[in-house]
């Protein structure tokens, strides 16, 4: 009897300690939320040496439209460094350096890509962009 009481108290305590899945983008217990697939097949191509406009072209295999509304392109200075979003595109291609606000200088870079999907609630209210798993980093050297 005493052991049962202790076990019941322990179970009650651990149940009370359970945190709620309150993030509206959390797919846990919410089958309406579709998580975008991880992006694969990332390839990078840099501008030629001596070219005036430096750029990096990034291509990847497109995800099914069912789970993807667009892509984030990230750039880092090392494999395990922090990565920053350098562009957001709707297709499976990005020319980093084609826009005025892009900054591509000669050097070594690592690129990653992830897909996102817009999430809405039952009433059609926008809840946010759910980002899927990021691809493996891809190295590219931009010549001077």
């Amino acid at each position, binding site marked *: 009897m005493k052991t049962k009481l202790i076990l019941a108290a322990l179970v009650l305590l651990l149940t009370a300690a359970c*945190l709620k899945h309150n993030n509206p*983008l959390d797919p846990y217990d919410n089958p309406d939320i579709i998580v975008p697939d991880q992006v694969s097949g990332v390839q990078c191509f840099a501008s030629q040496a001596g070219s005036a406009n430096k750029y990096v072209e990034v291509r990847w295999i497109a995800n099914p439209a069912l789970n993807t509304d667009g892509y984030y392109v990230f750039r880092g200075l090392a494999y395990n460094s922090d990565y920053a979003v350098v562009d957001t595109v709707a297709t499976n291609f990005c020319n980093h350096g084609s826009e005025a606000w892009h900054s591509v200088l000669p050097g070594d870079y690592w690129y990653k890509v992830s897909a996102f999907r817009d999430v809405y609630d039952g009433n059609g209210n926008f809840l946010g962009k*759910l980002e899927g798993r990021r691809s493996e980093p891809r190295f590219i050297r931009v010549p001077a």
Partner: protein
Amino acid sequence: MRKTGFTLFFLILASCLLAQIQFDIESFADSTKYGWQDWRGRAAYREDLLNRQEMLQLYEMESSSIGAAILKSALVPGFGQITSKAGTKGTIFLGAELLSLGVSLYLYDRSNYYYNQYLTATQIDDIQQYYSLAQTPRYYSMLFLALGVVIWGYNIYDVILTTDNYNAQVWQDILQKHSKKAVSLGPEGIRVRF
């Protein structure tokens, strides 16, 4: 009028004298009826009674009330033990309670930090990672909180035993002190014990 006053006075005087004749002073002063053999027995009994009253007074002053000790320990764990002269035990209870509640609070704070990160996360890995990082310290926080409650409960149980022991010890000390009194003043005069 004057005659009536004198008559009343004599009647009262006569009744007082009659009452004195009827009052048996020997039977009243007979100490053997209480089990005393003579006036020495009565004096010894009185001395013993005074001694007991004095010891009881000392006990009342030096002993701890169990109710007050429980209240003290309920408010500050270990405080009841400390006032019952069990300082080490009281300090251990206080330290253990503070430690368990402190660790619980620290882990709860860590959990809340990661939970807030989880709530604002938009990337699937971050969502899962922050939730997991928030959940683990929350479990431990609750376990340490439960430990704190158990320590608090045991502290209440212990303060009853500690106060009981302390009061028993106080009584023993008073008894010892009284038996060791070298000089005592009684109706027989001053008594000196070597």
